[in-house]
């Protein structure tokens, strides 16, 4: 008889090759076109923001892991790199690097680690960092620059949505052309301006099933419907749904932030409610709120409801009686 002892392990003995780091690396790869676009449009300012955010996020994560006596494994799972990239991408090009670093520390420390690290946070960490900066340094966070590719002689410059809200761009006929929004040759947070670059990455994420297509679909659907109604009723006063989709942070939010697995629901019904909720919130803020842009707050707001949605709309177990009465 063989004396050799084999491994005893719980079934199943087959496992899919996909893993958490692979998912994270796919997201990072998907972000690269938009990162490249931001560097093209904002040059050194973009590079400076990326470096400071990435270094600050990684350091903060490392310090927290050390304090919490956790293995350093999660430093390399890629999630903190995504947080750093996304935070940098949602910052205005004029922001000083100190503020970017402060935002990064808040994103990782308050947005992620205080909840217990990867998988336990309620809010999207990058957006927590950004929301902090927006509240604490509102002027710095709303001072814009035109991209270096745009021949505008100006020290400051309004974003397409700022123009729409505060300059009555539709009435004045100064609305940023769709074409410019599509390529990204316009003002805004460094990573959000180029729609084509963001969509390129999104295509990868959807074909590889890294993100749930229902989330961006629901957001775009709700926003189109919401802004569409007003546009049809008053095209001389309201911008078109196409403008709302391509302008500001909608695309980066819908494809890269609302889809964050940790902070989005896990079942069909809950996913649709979450996504439609974000879309409607964005429409409400943009059309009737005090801010020109509402993507960040809409996502954070709907993040709040995720645990509740997950509990309320749990899937029906096979053989469970349908609620008929």
């Amino acid at each position, binding site marked *: *008889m063989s004396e050799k002892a084999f491994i005893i392990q719980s079934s199943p003995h087959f496992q899919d090759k996909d893993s958490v780091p692979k998912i994270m690396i796919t997201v990072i790869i998907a972000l690269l076109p938009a990162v490249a676009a931001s560097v093209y449009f904002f040059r050194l300012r973009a590079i400076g923001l990326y470096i400071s955010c990435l270094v600050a996020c990684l350091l903060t994560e490392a310090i927290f892991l050390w304090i919490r006596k956790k293995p350093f494994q999660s430093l390399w799972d890629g999630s903190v790199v995504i947080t750093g990239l996304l935070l940098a991408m949602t910052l205005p090009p004029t922001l000083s690097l100190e503020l970017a670093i402060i935002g990064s520390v808040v994103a990782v420390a308050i947005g992620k680690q205080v909840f217990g690290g990867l998988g336990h946070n309620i809010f999207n960490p990058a957006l927590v960092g950004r929301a902090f900066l927006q509240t604490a340094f509102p002027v710095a966070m709303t001072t814009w620059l035109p991209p270096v590719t745009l021949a505008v002689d100006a020290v400051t410059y309004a974003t397409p949505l700022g123009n729409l809200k505060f300059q009555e761009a539709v009435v004045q006929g100064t609305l940023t052309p769709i074409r410019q929004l599509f390529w990204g040759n316009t003002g805004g947070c460094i990573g959000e301006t180029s729609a084509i670059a963001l969509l390129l990455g999104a295509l990868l994420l959807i074909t590889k099933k890294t993100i749930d297509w229902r989330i961006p679909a629901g957001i775009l659907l709700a926003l189109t419907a919401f802004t569409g109604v007003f546009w049809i009723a008053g095209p001389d006063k309201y911008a078109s749904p196409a403008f709302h989709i391509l302008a500001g942070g909608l695309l980066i939010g819908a494809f890269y932030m609302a889809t964050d697995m940790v902070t989005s629901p896990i079942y069909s019904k809950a996913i649709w409610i979450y996504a439609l909720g974000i879309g409607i919130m964005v429409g409400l803020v943009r059309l009737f709120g005090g801010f020109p842009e509402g993507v960040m707050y809409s996502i954070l707001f709907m993040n709040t409801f995720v645990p509740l949605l997950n509990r309320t709309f749990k899937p029906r177990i096979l053989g469970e009686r349908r609620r008929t009465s």
Partner: protein
Amino acid sequence: MKTKTFPHGIHPPEGKESTVEKKLEFLPPPEKVVIPMHQHFGNPAEPLVKKGEEVFLGQKIGEATSLFSASVHASVSGKVLSVDGHNHPLGKPVLSVTLANDGEDRVYPEWEETEHPFEFDPDQIRKKVKDAGVVGLGGAAFPTAVKITPPKDKPIDTVIINGCECEPILTADYRLMMEYPDEILKGAELVRIATGADRTLVGIEDNKKKAFDLLHQRAASYSAEVFLVKTKYPQGAEKNLIYALLGREVPRGGLPFDVGVVVQNVGTAKAVWDAVKTGKTLYERALTVSGDGVKEPKNLIARIGTPFQAVTDCCGGIGEDVNLVIMGGPMMGLSQWNLDVPVIKGTSGILAWSSPKPTTEFSCIRCGRCVEHCPMGLVPTQLMKYVKYEQLPEAENWGALDCVECGSCQYSCPAKIPLVHWIRLGKNQIMSQKRKKSA
């Protein structure tokens, strides 16, 4: 014809190429067999023989002790060497009868051949099946006599014969369908008579088109309908197959009886036919020996009680680097710590390969893939958390007991969390609490 299927599930690599064309070979009976008294779902059998006694091939050596039990038979003729505890594929030592094979295969003289088995009434069929110790050969080894005795208040209208073989790597059921199509269909007809059902449906996954064509062609003479179902795991899980073929949902905690259905595996159908037609008791079964660590993968008909070592030796032995040996399929099979365990009635395969080091476990990132793939509509990640943090009532509330342990969740988990392990632990704890309460 449109292939039928169920929602969710996964599609793991099939890995059936190495044995799919290998005909079933009769494994030469070994010099010694070890026959455990407990090879089935339910209570163990009571040994009927003592050390030194001579037994015939197919003779009953263990008596079913209760309704939920099955009798056990000698798989060789020869002398009883011992009646004591022996290693068992399920992990714990089990009271077993060890027989020395005299090499003559003297058949038990009391087997009765029947001329017209289809004229039997349900009770006669059930008695034959019970006497032969037939259990479900798909893996769970539920006593078949119980399964073909529907409660009075639950009329059965449909018998489903399960030819899915959705577990990767295994091909023994496919070979049975290719080589014994008539026996399977005749056994199915006997099950139909015993349960009083109106019709018989056979479900075969569409990666086994040849078996479908063959059975479809033969079925006409046996009032059975053969259907292709989609190649998807776990298509062969009882509740999912019923849903795929009939659109009926077995109620939570219920049995197929509750929706008028009895499901039998193809191997079981053949065993029923053998038992009723010839009186042959269940002393051998078909199994696949495969995996990268097996030198000559084969499909075998092996005597119950053959040590795994003798089985793998007949397949060229296993590689030096093999560190994982599984009884059953790769999705639901049980890992073995050595080869000194016998083939039992539930052994659908013996697989061996060298498994890489277990991957590091990550935190759950709530990607929802386990929910997307669970064929029962459960939330495995939530169940895992409830069990881990000892919130058993919540785990039960979220359907822990509905889990069939198919492994689809863990297969698709990118964080490599042993979800099935946690849920199984929770199920055991919930059940033992229930037993304590009722005691």
